[in-house]
């Protein structure tokens, strides 16, 4: 019989995979992987601030990720430093800041490994509520703005001419990414959370011929990875987060064996 903590871990992981699946597609379509990594680096600072202000760490992490995303959006408008370099500077600055703040807090030090690598078996009932609320909000927001999101992915200027509020849609996507990272870090930790977002999406590519199929496939692959990873962790007594990411990566590697569906049969 499965223990309660294991069932909570399964449910939490599946909830996170549902939120991460379609958001991950936009991350790979729009080359936002490094952006996601930068947001994940803010996790530690968020956790520390959560303890200082006595609010749930997951909420504090979400708030700090969102703040960082806003900073990046504003700083992106200047033209002196490339966005790439800027992400590198900010990501490591907030990460170092997080480490320093945590060092001041005796009580938190024992949990550091848990936040770096995730602690899926420690998912509580409150966490489950937050994870599923996030999943519902993310899916609803994506469905609401789906065409606009796709439109700015293909070409921002073309979308703007056709009346898409480009800046607001971009902000929404970063908001959703910050939310996914905040819940995903509970499952696989800040060092692997970006993998939870991009690996299932990348693995889904060859199984799809439309953006929607890819989003669904990405979600399914995420769920399969969570379930298979957790049972592997149980079976062989290895950490859950890394096991989940390994399963997803294996699915990605297998997906490369699938044929590429191109303009086959075209005479030219």
């Amino acid at each position, binding site marked *: 019989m499965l223990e309660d903590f294991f069932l909570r871990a399964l449910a939490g992981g599946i909830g996170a995979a549902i939120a991460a699946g379609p958001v991950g597609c936009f991350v*790979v*379509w729009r080359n936002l992987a490094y952006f996601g990594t930068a947001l994940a680096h803010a996790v530690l600072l968020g956790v520390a601030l959560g303890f200082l202000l006595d609010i749930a760490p997951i909420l504090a992490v979400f708030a700090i990720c969102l703040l960082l995303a806003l900073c990046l959006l504003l700083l992106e408008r*200047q*033209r*002196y430093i490339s966005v790439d370099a800027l992400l590198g500077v900010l990501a490591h600055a907030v990460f170092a800041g997080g480490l320093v703040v945590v060092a001041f807090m005796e009580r938190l030090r024992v949990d550091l490994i848990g936040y770096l690598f995730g602690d899926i078996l420690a998912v509580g009932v409150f966490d489950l509520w937050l994870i599923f609320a996030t999943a519902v909000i993310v899916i609803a927001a994506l469905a609401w703005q789906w*065409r606009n999101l*796709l*439109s700015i*992915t*293909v*070409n921002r*200027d*073309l979308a*703007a*001419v*056709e009346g898409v509020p480009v800046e607001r849609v971009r902000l929404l996507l970063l908001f959703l990414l910050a939310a996914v990272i905040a819940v995903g870090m509970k499952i696989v930790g800040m060092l692997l959370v970006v993998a939870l977002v991009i690996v299932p999406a*990348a693995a889904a*590519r060859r199984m*799809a*011929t*439309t*953006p929607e*199929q*890819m989003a669904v496939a990405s979600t399914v692959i995420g769920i399969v990875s969570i379930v298979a990873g957790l049972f592997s962790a149980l079976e062989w007594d290895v950490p859950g987060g890394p096991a989940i990411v390994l399963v997803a990566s294996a699915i990605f590697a297998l997906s490369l064996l699938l044929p590429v*569906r*191109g*303009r086959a049969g*075209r005479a030219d």
Partner: protein
Amino acid sequence: MPRPSSSDPAQAAPLVEARGVCVRFGRLSVLDNVDVAVRPGEIMTLVGLNGAGKSTLVRVILGIVKPDSGEVRRAPGLRIGYSPQHLHRDQILPMTVRRFLTLGGPATPDRLAAALDEVGAGSIVDFPLAEISGGELQRVLLARALLREPGLLVLDEPLAGVDVTSQSDLYKLIATIRDRYGCAVILVSHDLHLVMSDTDTVVCLNRHVCCSGQPQSVVRHPEFIALFGSHLADTLAVYQHMHDHRHDALGEPMAAESVAAQDSGHTGRRPC
């Protein structure tokens, strides 16, 4: 074929008019006091070297970039069809041509088919967007612009990535579309001297408007036909630049005195 522009486009109120437009990125001046106007049915070709501010001016006209000073007026209710210079089409995004066309707004299958037939791209509708050729992409972009039933078509370097033999076909197609729908066209090109023969006005940009005027038909020049063939010569015209100033090595306009000194007394307009 009817030519809406031949009924003296100078009389009609402009669809878009930019006056005294200046755009700076940081300390770099990209556009300096630019005036352009495009009237109904008119084809305007915007030429200039790389970095001359062509795409920035286009983005000002489209309303994406706000000028630091100057004003842009658009005719009320003007619908613009836009074909961007670069499109992010990556294999990672599974998207067919059909899907791409409906991203701009819902379109019935009939309208979709009509737009694709118009640009001669009906056969590639179910191909992945990432795999069509440069020339096919330009036709698809035109179809997406046409679906908006535009009063103004803005085409940023529509010949980019198009092989030479297809280039004249594309120019003919653009001219046909203008004639059929009477929409105005702003065409961006980095070719300073050969422009589309149906062009009504050429504007040469180098951060400011260097000169503007009408192209000369080259169809009858036997040497040109010998060089390019009559198929190509039909669609191209030569633009003779009339600059009243010169640019130094950095592209900055030079003061009139120093130009005069260099030219030992020649004044007035001269070809560059």
